[in-house]
Protein backbone atom coordinates (compact mmCIF):
# COMPACT_ATOMS: atom_id res chain seq x y z
CA UNK A 1 0.00 0.00 0.00
CA UNK A 2 2.71 2.45 1.03
CA UNK A 3 4.67 1.32 -2.00
CA UNK A 4 1.71 2.19 -4.21
CA UNK A 5 1.37 5.64 -2.63
CA UNK A 6 5.08 6.22 -3.16
CA UNK A 7 4.81 5.15 -6.80
CA UNK A 8 1.86 7.52 -7.33
CA UNK A 9 3.69 10.41 -5.69
CA UNK A 10 6.80 9.80 -7.77
CA UNK A 11 4.76 9.57 -10.97
CA UNK A 12 2.85 12.76 -10.19
CA UNK A 13 6.15 14.38 -9.27
CA UNK A 14 7.68 13.37 -12.56
CA UNK A 15 4.88 14.58 -14.85
CA UNK A 16 3.90 17.70 -12.91
CA UNK A 17 7.52 18.52 -12.17
CA UNK A 18 8.78 18.25 -15.74
CA UNK A 19 5.80 20.21 -17.06
CA UNK A 20 6.42 23.01 -14.54
CA UNK A 21 10.12 22.98 -15.37
CA UNK A 22 9.49 23.25 -19.09
CA UNK A 23 7.10 26.21 -18.79
CA UNK A 24 9.36 27.90 -16.24
CA UNK A 25 12.42 27.65 -18.46
CA UNK A 26 10.45 29.07 -21.41
CA UNK A 27 9.41 32.03 -19.24
CA UNK A 28 12.95 32.51 -17.85
CA UNK A 29 14.53 32.61 -21.30
CA UNK A 30 11.89 34.99 -22.62
CA UNK A 31 12.38 37.44 -19.74
CA UNK A 32 16.16 37.15 -19.86
CA UNK A 33 15.99 38.20 -23.50
CA UNK A 34 13.94 41.25 -22.47
CA UNK A 35 16.58 42.19 -19.89
CA UNK A 36 19.62 41.96 -22.18
CA UNK A 37 19.60 45.79 -22.33
CA UNK A 38 20.05 46.10 -18.55
CA UNK A 39 23.72 45.37 -17.82
CA UNK A 40 24.06 43.23 -14.69
CA UNK A 41 27.59 42.59 -13.41
CA UNK A 42 29.40 41.72 -10.23
CA UNK A 43 31.95 44.54 -10.69
CA UNK A 44 32.55 46.54 -7.53
CA UNK A 45 32.53 49.91 -9.33
CA UNK A 46 30.61 51.02 -12.42
CA UNK A 47 32.77 50.85 -15.57
CA UNK A 48 34.27 54.14 -16.71
CA UNK A 49 31.63 56.36 -18.14
CA UNK A 50 31.58 60.08 -19.00
CA UNK A 51 28.16 60.40 -17.38
CA UNK A 52 27.74 61.22 -13.70
CA UNK A 53 26.01 58.73 -11.39
CA UNK A 54 22.67 60.20 -10.33
CA UNK A 55 21.84 57.63 -7.67
CA UNK A 56 22.72 54.12 -6.47
CA UNK A 57 20.22 51.87 -4.81
CA UNK A 58 20.13 48.35 -3.32
CA UNK A 59 17.93 45.99 -5.30
CA UNK A 60 17.18 42.34 -4.53
CA UNK A 61 15.25 39.35 -5.74
CA UNK A 62 14.13 36.18 -4.03
CA UNK A 63 12.88 32.86 -5.33
CA UNK A 64 12.03 29.63 -3.56
CA UNK A 65 11.88 26.50 -5.69
CA UNK A 66 10.30 23.28 -4.42
CA UNK A 67 11.63 19.78 -5.07
CA UNK A 68 9.06 17.27 -6.32
CA UNK A 69 8.84 13.67 -5.17
CA UNK A 70 10.44 12.34 -8.32
CA UNK A 71 13.53 14.49 -7.83
CA UNK A 72 13.57 13.64 -4.15
CA UNK A 73 13.39 9.92 -4.92
CA UNK A 74 16.16 10.10 -7.53
CA UNK A 75 18.24 12.22 -5.14
CA UNK A 76 17.85 9.74 -2.26
CA UNK A 77 18.96 6.96 -4.60
CA UNK A 78 21.87 9.15 -5.68
CA UNK A 79 22.82 9.56 -2.02
CA UNK A 80 23.46 5.82 -1.84
CA UNK A 81 25.91 5.74 -4.71
CA UNK A 82 27.35 9.25 -4.79
CA UNK A 83 28.10 11.30 -7.87
CA UNK A 84 26.57 14.37 -9.45
CA UNK A 85 23.22 15.26 -7.92
CA UNK A 86 21.83 16.14 -11.33
CA UNK A 87 18.23 15.87 -10.15
CA UNK A 88 18.66 19.10 -8.16
CA UNK A 89 20.73 20.97 -10.75
CA UNK A 90 17.77 22.36 -12.66
CA UNK A 91 16.07 23.41 -9.42
CA UNK A 92 19.11 25.41 -8.31
CA UNK A 93 19.53 26.87 -11.80
CA UNK A 94 15.91 27.97 -12.00
CA UNK A 95 15.90 29.45 -8.49
CA UNK A 96 19.01 31.50 -9.20
CA UNK A 97 17.84 32.76 -12.57
CA UNK A 98 14.33 33.52 -11.33
CA UNK A 99 15.71 35.51 -8.40
CA UNK A 100 18.03 37.44 -10.72
CA UNK A 101 15.11 38.25 -13.00
CA UNK A 102 13.10 39.54 -10.05
CA UNK A 103 15.98 41.74 -8.98
CA UNK A 104 16.30 43.10 -12.53
CA UNK A 105 12.56 43.72 -12.55
CA UNK A 106 12.91 45.79 -9.37
CA UNK A 107 15.78 47.78 -10.87
CA UNK A 108 13.89 48.41 -14.10
CA UNK A 109 10.89 49.75 -12.19
CA UNK A 110 13.18 52.21 -10.41
CA UNK A 111 14.61 53.33 -13.74
CA UNK A 112 18.14 52.00 -13.20
CA UNK A 113 20.66 51.91 -16.05
CA UNK A 114 22.73 49.05 -14.72
CA UNK A 115 23.26 46.75 -11.76
CA UNK A 116 26.71 46.33 -10.25
CA UNK A 117 28.13 44.34 -7.37
CA UNK A 118 25.76 41.41 -7.89
CA UNK A 119 25.79 38.81 -5.07
CA UNK A 120 23.98 35.49 -4.77
CA UNK A 121 23.06 33.60 -1.61
CA UNK A 122 21.34 30.24 -1.41
CA UNK A 123 19.64 28.49 1.46
CA UNK A 124 17.58 25.36 1.82
CA UNK A 125 14.17 25.64 3.39
CA UNK A 126 12.48 22.58 4.93
CA UNK A 127 14.20 19.20 4.83
CA UNK A 128 15.48 19.48 8.38
CA UNK A 129 15.90 23.25 8.53
CA UNK A 130 13.57 26.03 9.69
CA UNK A 131 12.13 23.86 12.46
CA UNK A 132 10.71 21.28 10.07
CA UNK A 133 11.83 17.76 10.79
CA UNK A 134 10.82 15.79 7.75
CA UNK A 135 9.73 18.49 5.36
CA UNK A 136 10.51 18.28 1.68
CA UNK A 137 13.50 20.41 0.82
CA UNK A 138 13.01 23.68 -1.06
CA UNK A 139 15.81 25.82 -2.38
CA UNK A 140 15.91 29.53 -1.87
CA UNK A 141 18.05 31.82 -4.00
CA UNK A 142 18.54 35.41 -2.88
CA UNK A 143 20.16 37.79 -5.34
CA UNK A 144 21.11 41.37 -4.53
CA UNK A 145 23.13 44.14 -6.14
CA UNK A 146 23.48 47.87 -6.53
CA UNK A 147 21.30 49.55 -9.12
CA UNK A 148 22.87 52.63 -10.68
CA UNK A 149 21.26 55.45 -12.63
CA UNK A 150 23.24 57.99 -14.65
CA UNK A 151 22.27 61.60 -14.89
CA UNK A 152 21.01 62.47 -18.36
Amino acid at each position, binding site marked *: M*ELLILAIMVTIGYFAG*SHAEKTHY*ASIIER*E*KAFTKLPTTNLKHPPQDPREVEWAQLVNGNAVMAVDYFKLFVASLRN*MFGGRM*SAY*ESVIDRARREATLRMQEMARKQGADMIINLRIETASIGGGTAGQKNGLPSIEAMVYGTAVRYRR
Partner: protein
Amino acid sequence: MVFVPKEPPAATENVNVSPNHPLHEFLILLGGLAGVLFLVWLLLGLAVDWIVPNLDPRAESQLATIYRPLLEVGDASPTTQTGSRALQIELDQLLALQFPDKAKRPAYFVHLHSDEDVNALALPGGHILVLSGLLAQAESENELLFVLGHELGHLIHRDHLRGLGRSLVMYTLANALFGNQNFVSGMAENSLRNLQLSFSRGQESAADQLGLALLVKKYGHAGGATVFFERLAKQEKSPRFLSYLTTHPHPQERVEQLQALIQAQAYAIKPTQPLSKALKANLAASQEHNPDGQSEKD
Protein backbone atom coordinates in the same frame (compact mmCIF):
# COMPACT_ATOMS: atom_id res chain seq x y z
CA MET B 1 35.14 48.37 -21.23
CA VAL B 2 32.12 48.18 -23.46
CA PHE B 3 28.86 46.51 -22.65
CA VAL B 4 27.67 44.20 -25.42
CA PRO B 5 24.13 42.87 -24.92
CA LYS B 6 24.00 39.06 -25.34
CA GLU B 7 21.01 36.77 -25.47
CA PRO B 8 20.75 34.00 -22.87
CA PRO B 9 21.81 30.52 -24.06
CA ALA B 10 19.11 28.18 -25.28
CA ALA B 11 17.70 25.67 -22.76
CA THR B 12 19.62 22.83 -24.42
CA GLU B 13 22.92 24.71 -24.05
CA ASN B 14 22.59 25.30 -20.32
CA VAL B 15 25.96 24.36 -18.82
CA ASN B 16 24.60 24.29 -15.30
CA VAL B 17 22.15 21.46 -15.87
CA SER B 18 23.25 17.96 -16.91
CA PRO B 19 21.95 17.17 -20.37
CA ASN B 20 20.89 13.56 -19.64
CA HIS B 21 17.20 12.73 -19.30
CA PRO B 22 16.00 12.46 -15.69
CA LEU B 23 14.31 9.10 -16.36
CA HIS B 24 17.61 7.72 -17.63
CA GLU B 25 19.29 8.48 -14.34
CA PHE B 26 16.27 7.21 -12.42
CA LEU B 27 16.41 3.82 -14.15
CA ILE B 28 20.17 3.46 -13.71
CA LEU B 29 19.95 4.27 -10.00
CA LEU B 30 16.94 1.99 -9.51
CA GLY B 31 18.81 -0.83 -11.22
CA GLY B 32 21.79 -0.22 -8.94
CA LEU B 33 19.57 -0.31 -5.87
CA ALA B 34 17.91 -3.54 -7.01
CA GLY B 35 21.35 -5.06 -7.60
CA VAL B 36 22.61 -4.09 -4.15
CA LEU B 37 19.45 -5.36 -2.44
CA PHE B 38 19.65 -8.63 -4.35
CA LEU B 39 23.28 -9.12 -3.39
CA VAL B 40 22.72 -8.42 0.30
CA TRP B 41 19.61 -10.58 0.21
CA LEU B 42 21.61 -13.42 -1.28
CA LEU B 43 24.36 -13.09 1.31
CA LEU B 44 21.92 -12.96 4.21
CA GLY B 45 20.06 -15.90 2.71
CA LEU B 46 23.31 -17.85 2.86
CA ALA B 47 23.70 -16.70 6.46
CA VAL B 48 20.24 -18.11 7.21
CA ASP B 49 21.14 -21.45 5.66
CA TRP B 50 24.11 -21.53 7.98
CA ILE B 51 22.26 -20.30 11.10
CA VAL B 52 19.17 -22.51 10.88
CA PRO B 53 20.87 -25.87 11.57
CA ASN B 54 22.87 -24.28 14.42
CA LEU B 55 20.10 -22.26 16.06
CA ASP B 56 19.85 -22.58 19.83
CA PRO B 57 16.50 -24.11 20.92
CA ARG B 58 16.08 -21.31 23.46
CA ALA B 59 16.44 -18.67 20.74
CA GLU B 60 13.85 -20.58 18.77
CA SER B 61 11.32 -20.59 21.59
CA GLN B 62 11.87 -16.85 21.94
CA LEU B 63 11.00 -16.48 18.28
CA ALA B 64 7.81 -18.42 18.90
CA THR B 65 6.43 -15.59 21.03
CA ILE B 66 5.34 -13.86 17.80
CA TYR B 67 2.85 -16.69 17.33
CA ARG B 68 1.65 -16.91 20.93
CA PRO B 69 -1.72 -15.24 20.20
CA LEU B 70 -2.39 -17.87 17.54
CA LEU B 71 -1.52 -20.75 19.87
CA GLU B 72 -3.62 -19.31 22.67
CA VAL B 73 -6.64 -19.17 20.40
CA GLY B 74 -6.01 -22.84 19.72
CA ASP B 75 -6.17 -23.53 23.45
CA ALA B 76 -9.29 -21.47 24.09
CA SER B 77 -12.20 -23.87 24.38
CA PRO B 78 -12.18 -26.93 26.67
CA THR B 79 -13.22 -29.23 23.82
CA THR B 80 -10.17 -28.34 21.78
CA GLN B 81 -8.07 -28.73 24.92
CA THR B 82 -9.03 -32.38 25.29
CA GLY B 83 -8.38 -32.82 21.58
CA SER B 84 -4.97 -31.20 21.95
CA ARG B 85 -4.16 -33.60 24.77
CA ALA B 86 -5.19 -36.62 22.73
CA LEU B 87 -3.06 -35.44 19.81
CA GLN B 88 -0.16 -34.75 22.17
CA ILE B 89 -0.20 -38.39 23.30
CA GLU B 90 0.04 -39.47 19.65
CA LEU B 91 2.84 -37.00 19.01
CA ASP B 92 4.78 -38.15 22.07
CA GLN B 93 4.57 -41.73 20.80
CA LEU B 94 5.94 -40.64 17.44
CA LEU B 95 8.73 -38.71 19.16
CA ALA B 96 9.61 -41.76 21.25
CA LEU B 97 9.86 -43.79 18.05
CA GLN B 98 12.00 -41.21 16.28
CA PHE B 99 14.27 -40.43 19.25
CA PRO B 100 14.71 -43.63 21.33
CA ASP B 101 17.28 -41.82 23.47
CA LYS B 102 15.22 -39.78 25.92
CA ALA B 103 18.01 -37.26 26.56
CA LYS B 104 18.10 -36.25 22.93
CA ARG B 105 14.33 -36.09 22.48
CA PRO B 106 13.14 -32.53 21.72
CA ALA B 107 10.00 -31.10 23.34
CA TYR B 108 7.41 -30.56 20.63
CA PHE B 109 3.81 -29.55 21.24
CA VAL B 110 0.65 -30.04 19.25
CA HIS B 111 -2.36 -27.72 19.46
CA LEU B 112 -5.85 -28.25 18.12
CA HIS B 113 -7.37 -25.13 16.63
CA SER B 114 -11.11 -24.90 16.05
CA ASP B 115 -11.31 -24.09 12.34
CA GLU B 116 -13.21 -25.80 9.55
CA ASP B 117 -10.26 -25.55 7.15
CA VAL B 118 -8.31 -28.75 6.63
CA ASN B 119 -4.69 -28.05 7.47
CA ALA B 120 -1.79 -28.65 9.81
CA LEU B 121 1.17 -26.30 10.28
CA ALA B 122 4.63 -26.53 11.79
CA LEU B 123 5.45 -23.37 13.77
CA PRO B 124 8.68 -22.11 15.36
CA GLY B 125 9.31 -23.17 18.93
CA GLY B 126 8.35 -26.76 18.16
CA HIS B 127 4.61 -26.23 17.85
CA ILE B 128 2.33 -28.10 15.49
CA LEU B 129 -1.03 -26.51 14.85
CA VAL B 130 -3.79 -28.91 13.76
CA LEU B 131 -7.03 -27.41 12.51
CA SER B 132 -10.14 -29.31 13.62
CA GLY B 133 -11.28 -29.54 9.98
CA LEU B 134 -8.47 -32.05 9.47
CA LEU B 135 -9.78 -34.22 12.32
CA ALA B 136 -13.35 -33.96 11.04
CA GLN B 137 -12.55 -35.49 7.67
CA ALA B 138 -10.02 -38.08 8.89
CA GLU B 139 -11.29 -41.67 8.82
CA SER B 140 -8.42 -43.55 10.38
CA GLU B 141 -5.77 -43.06 13.02
CA ASN B 142 -3.12 -44.04 10.47
CA GLU B 143 -3.78 -41.17 8.08
CA LEU B 144 -3.94 -38.68 10.93
CA LEU B 145 -0.64 -39.97 12.25
CA PHE B 146 0.92 -39.66 8.84
CA VAL B 147 -0.07 -35.99 8.62
CA LEU B 148 1.27 -35.48 12.15
CA GLY B 149 4.48 -37.28 11.22
CA HIS B 150 4.82 -35.11 8.15
CA GLU B 151 4.62 -31.90 10.20
CA LEU B 152 7.00 -33.45 12.72
CA GLY B 153 9.35 -33.99 9.79
CA HIS B 154 9.23 -30.27 9.06
CA LEU B 155 10.09 -29.51 12.69
CA ILE B 156 12.94 -32.03 12.82
CA HIS B 157 14.37 -30.77 9.53
CA ARG B 158 13.85 -27.18 10.74
CA ASP B 159 12.02 -26.25 7.56
CA HIS B 160 9.78 -23.87 9.54
CA LEU B 161 12.83 -21.84 10.58
CA ARG B 162 14.14 -21.79 7.06
CA GLY B 163 10.81 -20.50 5.73
CA LEU B 164 10.75 -17.95 8.53
CA GLY B 165 14.40 -17.08 8.10
CA ARG B 166 13.81 -15.47 4.71
CA SER B 167 11.13 -13.18 6.06
CA LEU B 168 13.24 -12.55 9.11
CA VAL B 169 16.21 -11.63 6.95
CA MET B 170 14.05 -9.26 4.93
CA TYR B 171 12.80 -7.68 8.17
CA THR B 172 16.27 -7.12 9.59
CA LEU B 173 17.58 -6.04 6.20
CA ALA B 174 14.91 -3.40 5.71
CA ASN B 175 15.31 -2.12 9.27
CA ALA B 176 19.04 -1.78 8.83
CA LEU B 177 18.80 -0.04 5.45
CA PHE B 178 15.91 2.36 5.85
CA GLY B 179 15.60 2.74 9.62
CA ASN B 180 12.74 1.69 11.86
CA GLN B 181 9.15 1.50 10.67
CA ASN B 182 9.45 1.86 6.96
CA PHE B 183 7.20 0.28 4.38
CA VAL B 184 9.50 -2.63 3.57
CA SER B 185 9.91 -3.76 7.19
CA GLY B 186 6.16 -3.37 7.66
CA MET B 187 5.60 -5.71 4.76
CA ALA B 188 8.15 -8.17 6.10
CA GLU B 189 6.56 -8.14 9.54
CA ASN B 190 3.17 -8.76 7.99
CA SER B 191 4.52 -11.74 6.13
CA LEU B 192 6.05 -13.02 9.39
CA ARG B 193 2.66 -12.75 11.06
CA ASN B 194 0.71 -14.16 8.14
CA LEU B 195 2.72 -17.38 8.35
CA GLN B 196 3.57 -17.74 4.71
CA LEU B 197 5.08 -21.09 5.48
CA SER B 198 5.12 -22.81 2.17
CA PHE B 199 8.00 -25.19 1.81
CA SER B 200 9.99 -26.30 -1.17
CA ARG B 201 9.23 -29.54 -3.02
CA GLY B 202 12.36 -31.14 -1.59
CA GLN B 203 11.45 -30.18 1.98
CA GLU B 204 7.96 -31.58 1.50
CA SER B 205 9.10 -34.94 0.19
CA ALA B 206 11.72 -35.19 2.97
CA ALA B 207 8.94 -34.58 5.51
CA ASP B 208 6.76 -37.15 3.74
CA GLN B 209 9.58 -39.70 3.98
CA LEU B 210 9.89 -39.17 7.70
CA GLY B 211 6.13 -39.37 8.17
CA LEU B 212 6.06 -42.64 6.26
CA ALA B 213 8.97 -44.11 8.23
CA LEU B 214 7.26 -43.22 11.51
CA LEU B 215 3.98 -44.70 10.33
CA VAL B 216 5.69 -47.98 9.51
CA LYS B 217 7.59 -47.93 12.82
CA LYS B 218 4.36 -47.51 14.75
CA TYR B 219 2.02 -49.89 12.92
CA GLY B 220 4.41 -52.18 11.10
CA HIS B 221 2.82 -51.31 7.73
CA ALA B 222 2.21 -48.32 5.49
CA GLY B 223 -1.59 -48.56 5.27
CA GLY B 224 -3.38 -45.20 5.34
CA ALA B 225 -0.39 -43.15 4.25
CA THR B 226 -1.88 -42.07 0.94
CA VAL B 227 -5.57 -41.99 1.98
CA PHE B 228 -5.57 -38.36 3.02
CA PHE B 229 -3.96 -37.17 -0.20
CA GLU B 230 -6.20 -39.34 -2.36
CA ARG B 231 -9.21 -37.73 -0.71
CA LEU B 232 -7.59 -34.33 -1.15
CA ALA B 233 -7.00 -34.94 -4.86
CA LYS B 234 -10.64 -35.88 -5.32
CA GLN B 235 -11.99 -32.84 -3.49
CA GLU B 236 -9.52 -30.37 -4.88
CA LYS B 237 -12.24 -27.82 -5.60
CA SER B 238 -13.66 -27.84 -2.06
CA PRO B 239 -12.89 -24.55 -0.26
CA ARG B 240 -12.11 -26.43 2.96
CA PHE B 241 -9.02 -27.93 1.38
CA LEU B 242 -7.83 -24.68 -0.17
CA SER B 243 -5.69 -23.77 2.81
CA TYR B 244 -3.85 -27.10 2.70
CA LEU B 245 -3.29 -26.85 -1.02
CA THR B 246 -1.77 -23.38 -0.75
CA THR B 247 0.76 -24.56 1.84
CA HIS B 248 1.54 -27.97 0.34
CA PRO B 249 2.32 -29.37 -3.11
CA HIS B 250 -0.27 -31.04 -5.31
CA PRO B 251 -1.69 -34.16 -3.58
CA GLN B 252 -1.66 -36.40 -6.68
CA GLU B 253 2.08 -35.85 -7.02
CA ARG B 254 2.59 -36.81 -3.37
CA VAL B 255 0.44 -39.94 -3.66
CA GLU B 256 2.62 -41.09 -6.56
CA GLN B 257 5.82 -40.31 -4.67
CA LEU B 258 4.60 -42.13 -1.57
CA GLN B 259 3.56 -45.18 -3.56
CA ALA B 260 6.98 -45.28 -5.20
CA LEU B 261 8.58 -45.07 -1.75
CA ILE B 262 6.37 -47.82 -0.35
CA GLN B 263 7.30 -50.07 -3.25
CA ALA B 264 10.99 -49.27 -2.97
CA GLN B 265 11.10 -50.06 0.75
CA ALA B 266 8.75 -53.05 0.27
CA TYR B 267 6.45 -51.83 3.05
CA ALA B 268 3.34 -53.90 3.63
CA ILE B 269 -0.13 -52.36 3.46
CA LYS B 270 -2.66 -53.63 5.98
CA PRO B 271 -6.09 -52.39 7.10
CA THR B 272 -6.10 -49.13 9.05
CA GLN B 273 -7.30 -48.46 12.59
CA PRO B 274 -10.26 -46.19 13.30
CA LEU B 275 -9.76 -42.93 15.14
CA SER B 276 -9.15 -43.21 18.88
CA LYS B 277 -12.03 -42.70 21.30
CA ALA B 278 -10.58 -39.51 22.75
CA LEU B 279 -10.38 -37.84 19.35
CA LYS B 280 -13.83 -39.04 18.36
CA ALA B 281 -15.30 -37.64 21.56
CA ASN B 282 -13.62 -34.36 20.83
CA LEU B 283 -14.99 -34.34 17.32
CA ALA B 284 -18.55 -34.91 18.55
CA ALA B 285 -18.12 -32.20 21.17
CA SER B 286 -16.76 -29.67 18.73
CA GLN B 287 -19.65 -30.35 16.35
CA GLU B 288 -22.09 -29.92 19.20
CA HIS B 289 -20.32 -26.74 20.11
CA ASN B 290 -20.53 -25.57 16.53
CA PRO B 291 -23.61 -27.19 14.99
CA ASP B 292 -23.51 -25.67 11.50
CA GLY B 293 -19.87 -26.61 11.14
CA GLN B 294 -19.27 -22.88 10.67
CA SER B 295 -15.87 -21.53 11.42
CA GLU B 296 -15.49 -19.51 14.58
CA LYS B 297 -12.80 -17.48 12.96
CA ASP B 298 -13.83 -14.12 11.61
